[in-house]
């Protein structure tokens, strides 16, 4: 039946609601496009043969057939657009949550065009953020909560390695070590789940 492969793509999105981004279904998308091509060609053939038949009755039926195929075509198109659009919206969300570099297991789920889109989205966003604050730039993903103090106590949750601070000193972020760092410089790491704030 027409349109059933297309709806499978949409259902895949619903099933993976709680995942960051499911793998791109390249072969399924290909199949839907093939189906659309087949539908289009059948319609083309019918439209051309239509000019030869003169009976009004059979012409009416032919129009119906063409219209049914056409609606299937539009339906497939709509599913494909929705599938890709929703993936892009999730990808956009990921940029705000994970920052410019995605974890490898999410990155593997993208297709080539999505990688290109993601990179250009990142650079657009970076350009925008650098223009803010009278050209001095501001990172919009930080400072979501009003800071209580300039320095915070943090615990490291995994082996991250050396981290150089703005004043030139390096902090060795090894698992379960605690540090006293300027909030401004470690907030991003807290957001990315590398550090954890300790409240005293």
């Amino acid at each position, binding site marked *: *039946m*027409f*349109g059933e492969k297309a*709806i499978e793509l*949409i*259902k895949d*999105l*619903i099933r993976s609601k*709680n*995942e*960051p981004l499911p793998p791109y279904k390249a072969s399924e998308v290909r199949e839907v496009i093939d189906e659309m091509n087949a539908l289009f060609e059948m319609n083309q053939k019918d439209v051309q043969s239509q000019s030869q038949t003169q009976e009004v009755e*059979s012409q009416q*039926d*032919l129009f*119906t*057939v063409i*219209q*049914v195929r056409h*609606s*299937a075509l539009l*339906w497939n198109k*709509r*599913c494909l*657009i*929705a599938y890709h*659009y*929703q993936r892009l919206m999730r990808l956009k*969300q*990921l940029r705000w*949550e*994970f920052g410019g570099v995605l*974890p490898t*297991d*999410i990155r593997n789920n993208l297709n080539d065009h999505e990688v290109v889109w993601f990179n250009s989205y990142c650079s657009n966003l970076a350009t925008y953020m650098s223009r803010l604050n009278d050209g001095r730039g501001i990172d919009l993903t930080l400072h979501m*909560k009003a800071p*209580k103090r300039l320095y*915070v106590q943090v615990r490291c949750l995994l082996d991250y390695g050396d981290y150089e601070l703005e004043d030139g000193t390096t902090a060795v972020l090894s698992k379960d070590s605690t540090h006293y760092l300027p*909030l401004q410089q470690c*907030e991003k790491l*807290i*957001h*990315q*789940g590398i550090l*954890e*704030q300790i*409240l005293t």
Partner: protein
Amino acid sequence: MAASGANGGRVPSDFAAIDDIVALSKKVSCRFVKSVARLGFIDQSADCEHVAEGTQLELPLWMAKTLAARGLITVDPPKGYNQIYREILDADASVVDLHKLGPHFYAFGGHLVAMNAPEGEEIAKSLVHTFHQRLHKIMDFSLNASEDTPFELHAFKNNLDSCELELFEEGSNCLKDVKKWEHRTLDQICANDMVVSLKKRKRAMMACSERMATDS
């Protein structure tokens, strides 16, 4: 939930909305009032070239819409929208499992009404009335139910239509935020939600693979 359709050739606002698409893919039973030559390909179980008058078929709603617009089929109101169910919903809508009937009960109903199905007006009225009856309980649950009564909460959530569920989540998220504010956890800077969930998934997957390794 707005009915999409021909609004001057513009793209309807819910064009890419997943819920609307799924609602449109649901099947309805249709009866052909005219025979159509060479349309046999839409009925794959019967191997004939033409569709005869009186043929009964299960078609997805988006296709039924096209055919109904040409006046070729009549659509039977499916379960949940017919006379019997309308009476049930009229009596007390809050006990009906709309998830089972839907799960996109309102969106589907909206499309049925938009395509001038028989009894369309009654269906429209019943949809509004149903929502009206259920809304209060949804608000109540989302703003008061806590994790202390997980079974009740779960049973209630399973009865909801997809758009009701959205409302419910909205409400319960607000409740969580208020609780956070009350407990002053807002001061702590935390990891982003998705980062946390990805970590959890990884941990679960690692535990799973370890278990498989020990089993083998």
